C-alpha cells in the first residue's frame, strides 16, 4: 500500500527532496569549503594587471532568465573593472542585453566613473553573428547609444578606432561560443568568456588552443571570483545548496540503478 503510493507519486517525491535540499541552506547556512579553479584565477590576474584607462569591450549576450548564472558573475567582474578604473564599452548581441547591462550598472559601485567618458552602453546589435562581423569591421557603427544620446561627442568614443584598440573582450553567453570565437579570436588579445557551467565541457578545445584566454564557469566561477575579491557576494551564498542538490544527482543515479539492476537480475532468476 505504502509502496504503491510511493511509486505513484515518485516524481513528486523527487521534487520534494530537491526542494528540501534547496531550501535547507537558505534557512541554515552550512559554509562548505570552495576549492579554486585555475581558470578563474587566470581571469582575476588578467583583470588585475589592467592599467587605468585601458579599454575593455563587454557584450551581454544572455536572457534575463540566466541572470543568476551569468548576471552575478558579470556584476563581480564589472565591479573589479571599475575598481581598476578601466574604460568600458558595453554592447549586446542579445536583445535583452542592454536592459541587463543597465541592471548591473545600477547594482554595482561605479567608483565615480562618468557615463560617456569612462563607460558607455551602446546597445543591441541585431543579426547575431552578422552583427558581430559588422561590429568587428567597424566598432564605431553606432551614432546613438542605448539611451538615445548621440555618441559623436562622447570622449570614450574617440578613444578607439578599430577593434584592435580594445585590450580585453569579455562576453557572457549561455548558448555556444563558436560565433564569438569565429568573429573575435585573433582580433583582440585577451578574450574571456563568462559562460554558464553547462557549456564549459564543449569549450575546452578553445581554451586548449588559446583562442579563448580563460573563462568563468557560471555562478560557481562567480563564487570563486568573490573569494578572490574578498567579498561575500550573492554567488557564495548559493554554493552550499549547490553541493547538496548536485550530490542528490549522484545518489539518484545509484538508487535508480540499484532498483533497476535488482529487478533485472530478479526477473532472470
Amino acid at each position, binding site marked *: 500500500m505504502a509502496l504503491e503510493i510511493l511509486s505513484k507519486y515518485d516524481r513528486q517525491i523527487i521534487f520534494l527532496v530537491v526542494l528540501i535540499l534547496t531550501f535547507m541552506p537558505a534557512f541554515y547556512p552550512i559554509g562548505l569549503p570552495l576549492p579554486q579553479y585555475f581558470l578563474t584565477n587566470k581571469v582575476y590576474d588578467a583583470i588585475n594587471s589592467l592599467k587605468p584607462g585601458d579599454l575593455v569591450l563587454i557584450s551581454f549576450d544572455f536572457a534575463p532568465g540566466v541572470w543568476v548564472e551569468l548576471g552575478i558573475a558579470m556584476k563581480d567582474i564589472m565591479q573589479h573593472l571599475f575598481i581598476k578604473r578601466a574604460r568600458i564599452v558595453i554592447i549586446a548581441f542579445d536583445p535583452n542585453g542592454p536592459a541587463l547591462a543597465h541592471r548591473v550598472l545600477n547594482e554595482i559601485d561605479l567608483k565615480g566613473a562618468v557615463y560617456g567618458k569612462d563607460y558607455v552602453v551602446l546597445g543591441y546589435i541585431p543579426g547575431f553573428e552578422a552583427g558581430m562581423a559588422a561590429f568587428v569591421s567597424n566598432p564605431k557603427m553606432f551614432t546613438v547609444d542605448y539611451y538615445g544620446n548621440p555618441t559623436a561627442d562622447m570622449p570614450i568614443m574617440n578613444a578607439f578606432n578599430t577593434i584592435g584598440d580594445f585590450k580585453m573582450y569579455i562576453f557572457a553567453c549561455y548558448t555556444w561560443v563558436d560565433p564569438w570565437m569565429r568573429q573575435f579570436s585573433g582580433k583582440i588579445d585577451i578574450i574571456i568568456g563568462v559562460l554558464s*557551467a553547462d557549456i564549459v565541457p564543449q569549450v575546452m578545445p578553445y581554451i586548449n588552443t588559446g583562442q579563448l584566454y580563460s573563462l568563468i564557469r557560471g555562478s560557481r566561477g562567480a563564487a570563486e571570483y568573490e573569494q578572490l575579491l574578498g567579498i561575500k557576494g*550573492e554567488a557564495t551564498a548559493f554554493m552550499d545548496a549547490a553541493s547538496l542538490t548536485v550530490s542528490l544527482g549522484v545518489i539518484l543515479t545509484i538508487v535508480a540503478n540499484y532498483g533497476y539492476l535488482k529487478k533485472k537480475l530478479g526477473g532472470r532468476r
Partner: protein
Amino acid sequence: MSEVITPLIVGTLTLMAWSLLYRENVFYRIAEVLMVGFGMGYTLYISLSTLNRVWFQPLLSGKWWLIIPAILGLLLYTIYSRRYMFLSRWAMAAIAGAGSGYAVSRAIPVMIIGQIEGLAVKFSELSALDLANHIIATIACIGTVAYFTFTKEHKGWFGGLTRIGRWSMMLAFGSTFGATLYANQIFTIERAAFLAKYPQNLLLIIAVLFIVYDLFIRKKR
C-alpha cells in the same frame, strides 16, 4: 510599500509556476500565459525599436533604398492569401540564402581546418602521459568522424573504430549532462533563497496548506 508588495507578488508568481511540480492546475496556467504575454510584449517593443534604429531612422536620413527590404519583408504576409502566397518565398529565400552562406563559408576554415589543427601537437614537447592522452583524444576524434559514415556498414576494424567514436561521444555527452545539472540547479537555489526571506516565506505556508487541502479533498472523492 513596494519593498513588501513586490516580493509578495513575485513570490506568489514563483509558487504559482512551481505548482506544476505537484500537478497541473489553473495557477500554473496563469503563470504560463503571463510568461507568453510579457515575452510577446517585450519582443514587440524591442523589435519595433530595432526597426526604428536600423531601418526607419536611416530611411529618414536619406537611405531611400532601404524601402526595398521593407517591401520584401511585407511580402512575407502574402502567406495569408492563397493567390499571392508565392511572393512570400522571395523574402524567405533571401533570409535562408544569407544564413546558409554564413554557415557554409565558415564550415571549412573554422569547423574543419580549425579542429584538425588542434590535432597537430609536437610529440617532443609532451610528457609521456600527455602524449598518451593526445593519442587517445585523436583516436576519439577520428572515431567520431568515422561514426557518421552512412554508406559503409559498421563492421570489422571499421566497426571497432566507430564504436570507440560512439563511446567517446557518450563520455562527452555524459559530461555535458553532469555540468548542465549543476548549471540548472543554481536557478532553483536563487529562487529558494528569495522565498526564504521574511514576507515571502509566509507564502510557503499557504502553499503547503493548499497541497494538504488538495490531497485531503481528492482522497475523500
